Structure formats: structure tokens, C-alpha cells
């Protein structure tokens, strides 16, 4: 216990703090616009960084066994909050905040971690690797409930993160990748229903795959029924999507179709990043940022500020930092023999990685705009705290990689 309380993974902490400080610098820059400065943004973020470090320290005291014990209550609590949040007034079209006075807080950030914890508990109890889809019903439900609740907010980005989390956790629990794919195959079906020939081809390919794999009858039933069902209901479902979500997806396909309207964000972000070139326009010198052409430059598009001001080299440095952080997370997950701790570590890798990938790909138009923050960097207190909680858990799992002397 003593060893666990004091030992650090300095490498990991240094990477996280470097990213957070870089983020604060970018926030400072993002606030320097021609029509005034929002200096309080970076100052708030600095305060939140201290809060996050305190949370990091507090989590450091708690042993992993305790955390395993609170997994289930934390999950239930987060579900309650996700339901409660739907009753709060909407902020810019989405109900994802719980407000206490001036301090707002987004339960979906904590729900992600709670979901990782509770799915890790399921993984830890496995006697053997899940060998069929029936074995994956439990994790699919555990992830599906919060995913659907966030989709109702509506928050498409976070829902996508849940899907990736489910895939990653099932994979880490020993499920063969092809089975994970079969589990998620109806979602691919949804995306393909917009083109009937593509969807038909996909369904045929699925059938062929199943024929080769010769899985159980229930697998046949699940894959067949869900994919056909999705093929049929996806379009009515599409009509159920909020207008801006539809637009975001359509704009992703063709951003120039509406350059003044919804395509604006993508185009401006691409212009800002593209005009950065190799070395960028210099810190604080981004014209698109300064003249407010860049939308959401403190949150979703903070990476565009980096691209414009620090150029391709700045982007490379950022990707290097994230890459080192994620690879260290994988190493931690690999080294801790405890199935629960290992799965938690890997789930956190999936969480951070999916955010980084979706957010940065969105800024260059490789992904639809989903409004996901960039871990450690984007403005937003609760997500910064969640990121440092992840680092704290990694550190703990690293420190406890050898069973402590009891």
C-alpha cells in the first residue's frame, strides 16, 4: 500500500500536464481576437487544471479494489444523472449539462468512465473468452443504455465514442475481432442504407462471412435480423434525427454545398489549418482565428488554432504526445495481470484515442462534425477532470501491476 501511494509514473504525468499546458496556451491564443479577448477562458482552464490535479491525487490514495467495488454504484449514479440531465434546460440545442450556479458539469463525461469500470467488472469475471455473440449481450446492454441516453440529449459524438468503447472492451476481453465486427455490423448497415446497391453488397458479404465462420444459430439470427431491420428502419430513423445532426452528416459528405451555412465550420477550419503550412503563422498570429472566422475555437476546433499557428510541425508534435500517452496506456493495460485493472486501463486508452481521432479528423473534414472535445486541450472543466482521472487510474494500475504485499 505504501508503495502504491507514493510511486508515480512521471512519464505519463508529464505527457498529460504538457498536453494540458499546451491546451491552456492555445486557449489563450484562441481568446486573442480582434474584437476583444476572452481572457477568463484560459484562466478558468488553469484553475480547472489544479482541480484536475487534486482529483488525480485523491484517486491516487484509493486502492484499485475500492474502485472495483464502487464501479456498479458509480454506473447506476451516472445513469440517474443522464436521465436527470434531460430535464435541465437545453444549452445550444442539447441537454447535456447539470448546473450548480455558475459551475456546469456534464454527466456524460463521468458516465463514460463509469461504463468502462462496470464493463471491466464483467470482463474480469469471464472464465473464458467470449466465444459467441450471446456472450456479449451483457456488455452491449451496459454500454447501450448510456449510449442511448446520450443520443437523446442529443449528442451523436459521445454515442459514437460508446460504440468504440464497446468494441475496444470486448476486444480486450478476448473476443475475436471478427465477432466484435459482427456485433457492430448493424451500425455499418445504418450508414449504408443511403445507397441501396452498397447496402445489398454489404449484406451479401456479411452472409458470405457467416457462411465461412459457421457460427451458432443465434448469431445467424442476430446478424441477419438486425442488419435487415436496420436496412428497413434506418431511413425513418434518419428522419427522427435532429435537423442539425442531419445537416452535420450531409455537410460532411459535401461541405462546399452550403459554404455560408452549416458547411462554414468545416470550410473555415480547413482554411485555417491549411493556411498554416509547414511551420504555421506563429503563436498568437493566426489570422483566421484572430478575425473569428474559426468557429468554436475554444472547444471543438481548438486543434484548428494549433494547425493554423504552429503548422504541420505543431500537429506532428501534438500527435506524438498523444501517441506516446496512448501507447503508454496500452503498456499499462498489458502489464497489469489483474483482468479488471487491465480492462479499465485499456478502456481508458479507447476513450482518449476515440476522442483524439474523432476531434482531429473532424477539423480537417475527414469525419462529420460531432462536437467532441479534444482530451486535455479543449476548454471544459469536467472533461479535463475526467482526463486526469484517467491518468490517475493508469498510474494506479501501473503502480499495482505487481500484486502488492498484503
Amino acid at each position: 500500500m505504501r508503495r502504491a501511494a507514493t510511486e508515480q509514473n512521471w512519464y505519463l504525468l508529464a505527457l498529460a500536464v504538457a498536453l494540458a499546458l499546451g491546451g491552456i496556451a492555445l486557449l489563450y491564443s484562441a481568446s486573442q481576437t480582434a474584437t476583444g479577448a476572452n481572457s477568463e477562458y484560459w484562466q478558468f482552464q488553469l484553475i480547472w487544471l489544479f482541480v484536475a490535479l487534486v482529483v488525480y491525487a485523491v484517486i491516487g490514495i484509493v486502492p484499485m479494489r475500492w474502485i472495483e467495488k464502487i464501479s456498479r454504484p458509480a454506473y447506476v449514479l451516472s445513469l440517474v444523472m443522464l436521465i436527470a440531465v434531460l430535464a435541465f434546460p437545453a444549452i445550444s440545442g442539447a441537454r447535456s449539462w447539470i448546473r450548480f450556479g455558475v459551475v456546469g458539469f456534464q454527466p456524460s463525461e463521468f458516465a463514460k468512465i463509469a461504463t468502462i469500470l462496470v464493463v471491466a467488472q464483467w470482463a474480469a469475471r469471464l472464465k473464458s473468452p467470449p466465444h459467441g455473440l450471446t456472450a456479449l449481450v451483457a456488455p452491449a446492454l451496459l454500454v447501450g443504455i448510456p449510449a442511448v441516453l446520450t443520443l437523446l440529449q442529443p449528442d451523436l459524438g459521445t454515442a459514437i465514442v460508446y460504440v468504440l468503447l464497446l468494441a475496444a472492451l470486448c476486444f480486450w476481453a478476448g473476443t475475436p475481432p471478427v465477432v466484435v465486427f459482427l456485433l457492430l455490423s448493424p451500425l455499418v448497415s445504418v450508414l449504408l442504407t443511403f445507397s441501396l446497391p452498397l447496402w445489398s453488397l454489404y449484406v451479401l458479404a456479411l452472409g458470405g462471412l457467416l457462411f465461412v465462420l459457421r457460427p451458432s444459430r443465434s448469431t445467424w439470427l442476430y446478424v441477419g435480423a438486425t442488419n435487415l431491420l436496420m436496412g428497413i428502419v434506418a431511413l425513418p430513423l434518419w428522419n427522427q434525427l435532429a435537423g442539425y445532426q442531419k445537416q452535420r452528416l450531409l455537410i460532411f459528405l459535401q461541405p462546399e454545398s452550403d459554404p455560408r451555412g452549416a458547411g462554414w465550420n468545416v470550410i473555415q477550419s480547413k482554411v485555417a489549418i491549411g493556411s498554416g503550412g509547414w511551420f504555421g503563422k506563429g503563436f498568437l498570429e493566426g489570422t483566421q482565428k484572430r478575425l473569428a472566422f474559426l468557429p468554436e475555437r475554444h472547444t471543438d476546433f481548438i486543434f484548428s488554432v494549433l494547425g493554423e499557428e504552429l503548422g504541420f510541425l505543431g500537429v506532428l508534435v501534438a500527435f506524438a504526445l498523444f501517441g506516446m500517452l496512448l501507447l503508454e496506456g496500452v503498456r499499462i493495460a498489458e502489464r497489469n495481470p489483474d483482468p479488471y485493472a487491465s480492462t479499465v486501463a485499456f478502456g481508458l486508452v479507447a476513450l482518449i484515442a476515440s476522442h483524439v481521432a474523432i476531434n482531429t479528423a473532424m477539423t480537417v473534414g475527414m469525419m462529420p462534425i460531432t462536437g467532441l472535445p479534444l482530451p486535455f486541450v479543449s476548454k471544459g472543466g469536467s472533461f479535463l477532470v475526467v482526463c486526469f482521472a484517467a491518468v490517475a487510474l493508469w498510474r494506479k494500475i501501473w503502480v499495482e501491476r505487481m500484486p502488492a504485499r498484503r
Partner: protein
Amino acid sequence: MVSPFGRRALSPFDPLSRNRRAHLARLTIVAGLVVLTGGFFRLQVVQYAAHEAQSTNNQVRSIPLAAPRGFMYDRDGEIIAENLPAYSVSLMPSSERDLRADMERLRPILGLTDADIEELERQYALAPGQPILLDDALDYRTLSLLEEKRNEVPGILLQPKPRRVYPHGRATAHLTGYVAQISERELGDREGLGYSAGDILGKTGLESMYEAELRGEKGAEYVEVDALGRRIRPWPEQPFQAPSRGRDLHLTVDLDLQRRAAEIFPADRRGAVVALDPRTGDVLLLYSSPSFDPNVFSGRLTSDDWRRLIDDPSTPLLDRAIQARYAPGSVFKLATAAMAMMLGVVEPDEFEDVPCRGGYQFGSRWFGCHAVHGWAALQDAIITSCDTYFYQVGLKLGLEEITRFGRAWKFDQKTGIDLPNEVAGTFPASSAWYDELYGEGRWGSGVVLNLSIGQGEIALTPLKLAQFVAAVVNGGEMLQPRLRRSDAPPEVQATLPLSSDQFQILQTSMTGVVNDWRGTAYLRAHYTPLRYTIGGKSGTTEHNAGEPHGWFVAVGPMEDPQIVVAVVVEEGRSGSAQSPIAIDLIQTYLDDRNGLAPTPSAPPPPVALSESARAAD
């Protein structure tokens, strides 16, 4: 292939299988980052140039700066049109809502009406992002009030915008024309020529004719704007491009003559006066009465001012020198005489068959003359303006010949002066022309009698008639009149192929009109002393409504003609009554050219419009 469903590992977390999965995960992470890096590389390195250009395009707006128009000078280099420094106020709002709010704030200062605001909003909708001109004739008080509002109304744009000024406005109004803001329709017609809303455009006169040269090249102010279109600061790379002034226009007119004409033309009368240099076709004077002040259009023209100009029954905007047609009356006898001599149907020294007994009996109709002239030969007939003589000449010429000459001498054509909207004369083309006008067989051969004394179906602009008389005194060349000074030889549009003896007869007759005691203009012309040998021809034209119009076309000096002046005064009762105007202008001009003391302060000549005037014609 071994189905994953058929294989069972002992534990999902045994070190071996976990190690394999970790490798796969690492591979996925690195591959993902490589793909993302590729995306950024494509955008930032491969497509850098395009994005860089677009980023500049995003951030920089050019605000046009009005160019000063070229000046206009008279033949002596005196200024006819120039520019004064002035300021304009425009709005560059970031949205329609801002526009409305800004206009409400400026409303009391600029005195905008609801209709103005509606119109400006419509303009904004047509070209959002372009500055909208509110007023381009600010006085200093308004300018300073607006300066104070700068912070309250961020979209406000105060710019220097030179204001067009005509120092002798009324005297040169029909010559210069006027400038005003370009209209939506004019903007549409001039697409691709670099005009934008709020620009100044020459609307009439020389301003319109030489618009392309006078307008100059707009400059621009380059400013950085933010995403909402708010101006942030001058663009550091190129903050400003100076406009360049339009080309100056050097005119053939004599400003002193213009001013003198405006001074002595009977103020309450409609009419026009034109002067040409018969040697070159240079227009020395072009004045139409009543005149207007073109300066009011350069400022902010209220709709009331506009209505007043449009609704004025004396139509001051009409340029009567080139846009009004009058029957030339007896002035045309010079043409009839020229035709007759050319064809040899009259001998200048011989009398016609019938003497003038105050008229001429043609069939059952009596064609009157204004006096009893008795026996007269050609010169005397011109000097006394005997209609009876010319009725008989006309009959000898015949309708076909007269119309043929009319066409050859282009009485039915425009003169081609460098002014817009000139009208062509009316002149019968042939007997078929009459058939068309009245119906076959429904007109009598009496028309030829009227035509030969310049009445009936003939109507010419003052400029056209001056062009013809200039040809009579310059050896027969109908020169294209021109307002822009040029060293190029004048364009000859037609020639009167008369011998010099024949020209001499016509010129001597014209001298007689003024100087022979029997001449129609003798009495009037000698109210003031004549310093030059001046010739001329009067004309009085009957028309259906009101008093007859009076013409006088004068030339001086007859030994070496330098100026031809044509005056027409609507309802002036007689032509001879207008001779003092023409003679005064000729003497003013010749005094000036010969270095004599100018006589601008000389009293205007008496222009009596008494009943007795008719008898003298």
C-alpha cells in the same frame, strides 16, 4: 480458416493472448495517427497555396474609393467642370439587423425618411457586404456629428468623395449635363465595367458622352474584417490604393460666350442659341433656355427638387439646341436659292414671272407674303425675304428636286455632335413621303410652296441649321460639329457644290439682310453700333399654337467668317427681333479673339418684341 467460434483459450487474460492483443492495439493506434497525419499533410503542405490564398481572401475586404472626375475646360483653359473635396457617409453593416439599427441611429443626423431607409435596405439585399451610400454631400457640421458617432455605429464609413461642381452651372448646363448616383438599371446595363452601387455616373450631356474618360479609376482601401464583416484595421500588406483622376476634357466652347448668351437670352423665353466656327465645325456656344443648375444633381437631390424639374412646363432639362425641332422659316430660303442656282432654274439677276403684290395666287389658293415687294431679283428677294419670289422658285425646282437636295445635304439626319440624345431633323424624303403622311392624292402641290420658304413639313434643330449656314459661308462644307478640341481635320458630312460666284451671291445677300436699309434685320441690328461686317438671315415660323417662333442666323465677319450663330426664341414673334442677340454674341466673340477690350459689362441688346417686328420680316 479456423473459426474463432470453435477455438477456446484457457483464459482471456493469459499473458500470451494479452500480449498479442496489445500488439494489435498498438498497431491500430499508430496506423490511426499515421492516417490522421496524412490528412493534415495533404491540407497543410500539399494544398497549402490554395488555403493560404483563401485565408487572405477571407480576411481582406476592399472598400472602393471614388475617383475624382476629369475637369472640363473651355477653349481658353477656363474651368467649366471641376471637383470640390467632400465627404460621403456609407454603412458597412455586418447584417441586415445591424443595418436597420445603424440607420435608426443616424436618422436624426442625416434626416433619413422611411422611404429612404426602405430603399437602402433594398440596396443592401442586392449586394450584401458592399458599403451602402447614405449621403455623398456632407457638410462639415454633419461630418463632425458623424465622426462622434463612429464608436456607436461600428459600420459607419466616412470617405472622401470628390463632389462635381460646375462654376457657371446654368450657363453651361446643357453642355456639361450632370452627374448623379448610378441607378440600379444603369448598373445592370454597365455590368463588367467596374461600377458599383453608389457610384457617380454622367447622366446627360458631355458628362454622359465622355463618361468612360472622365470617370477615372477607383482606388481602394483594404481593410481586415472579421467573420462578421466588422472592420478591424487597415490591411498591413497593402492598406491603400489611390484612385486616379479621370482624363480632362478640353472643349471647343468659349466660356465667355456661354456666359454672355445666358445673360442676354430673354430670361422668360424658351429657345436656344448655338455658335459654330464655320472653318472647323467647332462648337463655340451651346445654350438652351430655360436652363437649370446641374450642381443640384451632384449633391443630395430631394425628390421634390426632381419633381419640380420634371414637372416644369418649360422643360428645362430639354436641350433645345439639339433636341428640339423648329421649322426654319425664311432662313431656309438660303437653301432654296442654292438649289435653284445649282440647277440653273433661276438667273440671279432676273426677276421671276410674277411680282410680289403681297402674295402669290397659286391655283385657287392665295399664298401670302409679309409685305409688298414688287419686282425683285434673287439677292433682293433674300434681303427682303420675299416669299412670292421663292414660291415661284420652289415651283420651278419641283418637289422631287427639293427633297433630293434635302437628303443630299442631310437635313433629315443628325449632325453627329458629341452629345447624347441628339434628334434628327424632319424633312420630306420624296413625294411618296407625303403619300405616306397624308394618304395618296390627299395633299396638294401647294406643299412645295411652303417647303421653299422653310414652312410646312420641315423642322430642324438649331444646331442643324447653324451647320447649314456655316456651309454657305465656308465654301460649301457641312462639317460635323464637335465639342471636344481636336487638331484633326473636321469631318465633312456633305458638300454644297456651288461655284464661288454663287456662294458670293448668297453671302452678299446675307450681308444685305443686316446692312442694306431694306434688310429685314437692318433696324434691329443698328440699335447698337456694328464693329464688324455681319451678315445673317431671319426666319419667322408660323405654327399652330401661339405666337410664331423667331430665328436669326448670323455670321461674322463676312470677309472672313469666324463664327456662325443661330438663335431661336419660341414665340419670339419674328426672326429679326432676335438679331440683336446673335449680333451681340458675334461681336463679343470677335472682340475677344481680336484682343479688343471684352465687353461683358455692356448692356444687353434691346430685344423688343413689339407687334411692328413682324412687319419688318
